[in-house]
């Protein structure tokens, strides 16, 4: 049985691990690194509960080999918030009741984070499209869309303030 020595950066922290060829990335994250916020829901790339960011791109970690992730930057829900505790998206999900059982939530958050990174002001249709690979069985999606919109607004406002501050310095 072949094993491989790999190194990954997860939420900014470097990790080395020895994995089997077949070890799935989601099991490396959950079982080896004990970051259990990333969940397994379907095994066939349909539900997105296992979504993490792999070099910034939302990816279903149940259908990636751990060894394929060698040398990559991985972001999981545990690293979403900065030192201040809650990312604007997490706040949005809380404010807008974008979660119920919470099982799909980490995957939704990671997908949402990647969307806002790429498209800071998405329309409802764009949000719906972006999360269409993440199944939620509890919320009916309406509040998830609102949660992402909340975060977009908040992050936009924050960016504006930052810009205004910068402008101020410039003038």
């Amino acid at each position: 049985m072949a094993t491989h020595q790999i190194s990954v950066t997860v939420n900014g922290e470097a990790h080395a691990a020895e994995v089997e060829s077949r070890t799935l990335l989601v099991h490396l994250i959950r079982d080896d690194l004990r970051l259990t916020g990333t969940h397994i829901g379907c095994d066939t790339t349909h539900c997105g509960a296992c979504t993490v960011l792999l070099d910034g791109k939302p990816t279903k970690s149940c259908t990636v080999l751990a060894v394929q992730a060698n040398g990559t930057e991985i972001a999981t829900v545990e690293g979403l918030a900065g030192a201040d505790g809650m990312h604007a998206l997490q706040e949005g999900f809380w404010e807008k009741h974008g979660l119920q059982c919470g099982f799909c939530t980490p995957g939704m958050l990671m997908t949402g984070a990647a969307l806002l990174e790429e498209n800071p002001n998405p329309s409802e249709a764009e949000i719906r499209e972006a999360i269409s690979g993440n199944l939620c069985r509890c919320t009916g999606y309406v509040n998830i869309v609102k949660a992402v919109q909340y975060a977009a607004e908040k992050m936009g406002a924050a960016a504006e303030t930052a810009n205004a501050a910068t402008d101020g310095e410039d003038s």
Partner: protein
Amino acid sequence: MAPKTSADICGMGHSMKRKEDPRFLQGKGNYIDDIVLPGMLWLDIVRSPIAYGKIKGIDSSKALEVPGVLAVLTGKDLEAYNLHWMPTLMSDTQMVLPTDTVMYQAQEVAAVIATSRYAAADGVAAVEVDYEPMKPVIDPFKALEEDAPVLRTDKEGQTDNRIWHWEAGDKEATDKVFEEADVVVRESMHVPRIHVASIETCGCVADFNPVEGHLTVYMTTQAPHAIRTVLALVAGHVGLSEEKIRVVSPDIGGGFGGKVPVYPGYVVAIAASVVLGKPVKWIEDRMENLQADSFARDYHMDAELAADADGKIRGLRIKTLADHGYSDAQAAPSKFPAGLFSICTGSYDMEQAYAEVDAVYTNKPPGGVAYRCSFRVTEAVHCMERVVDTLAHKVGKDPAQLREENFIPKEAFPYQSPLGWEYDSGDYQAAMDKAREMIGYDDLRREQAEKRARGELMGIGVCSFTEVLGAGPSKDFDILGIKMFDSAEVRVHPTGKAIARFGTKSQGQGHETTYAQIIAEELGLPAAHVQVEEGDTDTAPYGLGTYASRSTPTAGAAGAMAARQIRAKAAKIAAHLMEVSEEDLDWEPGKFSVKGAPDRSVTIQDCAFAAYTNLPEGLEPGLEATNYYDPPNLTFPFGTYICVVDIDRGTGEVTVRRFVAVDDCGNIINPMIVQGQIHGGLTQGIGPALFEEIPYDEDGNNLAGSFMDYLVPTSMETPAWETGHTITPSPHHPLGAKGVGESATVGAPPAIANAVVDALAHLGVTHLDIPITPDKVWEVLNEKGVAE
């Protein structure tokens, strides 16, 4: 309705942000697969690929050679402990592992225990089972034919495949109404087998301590206390008595009814832990979950309505065949084999009704779990709401108008239904009015007429449902004899903070928040200061669990009652502190004051502190109460849903353009959470209406065994739900509240089906079975000559 409490207290009526959310949002939830115990082993299950057949042999030798595999358990191994069979919650029996025959595809055949997840999976692949397949009985109608093979040969005295026959109502009187009626309409329909498909599958970690003989089972269960009792009954003879069993239900990633029963996997994992003396974890994968457990519905119904020429409903007659699969493993109250199906007369007043159900065994996995539904209410409502539309079309009346003309009038409550229910309260016209207004019903009908003239297909569907939930009053409701009360235990600490424990178990409903709000409402303690706990049988008071929208009607009521007991004691303390008599006290949330001297007051926190420090003579210290609430009646929430669909004449695709849901669940504890429950329920309504089904081929193969074919709606198929509400309090619930979690799942499918049929009604179409898939619609369009 304005909340009575301030935002600081956050009692009923406040859209308080959920207390449980931060841990879920930060990836710190504690779901079953997150639990790791020292020395833990993994269990994986060998499942039958065939639906019916003999096991000629199980060869474990190659599996035992797989590195990391420690043991393979079979039915024969369990037989030695008499653990190869277990009772179901409906007093039927079910194999844990088979000794000679498999009865459905994906049935558990053997279990492999190994040191890792991966080794266990390899072990499963290496177990060789020699099957002698037999021709399965898949069609429930054929199962009742005389020459059908008897499937349950293990049951003494069982000479056919009928499980039970059940009926409600006066058959003769109903037949007479039908004979006299001007109009009779009839529809045959099938509400197919579906699956709850919670995003988290089932699983457990069984941890038997051989030194103390103590078993802890962490499991995805909606009913931890009942499960503990069942385990004690199943395994008492091998020394597991109830005081030595602790069931812990951690965070649950969706339940919807699928996590009520005891599945063989749980029992095998426990047996494995007992045998090996180590913790054993079993987690289903998605295919196992979709193939072996958590199935709902599967009712074949023939419904007839008798009416006057103008559409006044006089009677209802329903004949039903219920396909339960291999075993009657429903989680229904024991006196209600067909659940609460007799709510089928719905929101309409009529003279007579008669319903009968025959249940039958087939070679499918046990069915009958309630998929977000209070025991067969979904089937009953679907049946009634569909056939009401047929009647409307038959007598040429608008379906909304025909409903209005037949509603039980609001003055008639409490209303005695012809099938024996006493509806607590209702105002159906108000919900209808609001829904019509929100959606602009009359304009839509005009638009439809214009489109119809142009050959476009648009439909408007109406559903006015009545739910029945909150099981239930102990005189009628029990599971395995255990009365269906529920419980709360509230303890106020000296500094005025509280812990409240309940016999239910949240799976996303937000109990940690809503229960805290109930306590806040009654005691005036800020909800933020009330810690809610559920799911640990060692600490929580005994209750029957969370399903069938029963938490608010039962445990929620228990919480209110316990808080009131505490308030009563606090009043004595307040009187003592202010040196007045109890009769001289006024209460407002959080504060006792002296009548006529509102400045003289003590807070509930003051009383709490005094309960431990400064008590009136003769009063027992402490400030806590436990309440076991036995509801006097069920609650009957209701609503009117209206939806608009457009049909693609080329492909048969149905698009839900708009969907308005007006619900009435009595007084509302947390409006945000109630709306969230409705949104989720609606989505689990559009699923079965348009997408979800577990079909079997004639060989018993499950054809929707993964999310590739079990079509859970995504954000793209789900419309932007529009919700509204009316409030008609329950007269008997302490808070005037009713349940709500399942209303939308019950009401949405017929609204959508009615809309599709409405779009095609002018072509002579009266019915389409759910799920209404594009190919089904196209076949109709093609037959009627209107396909593109």
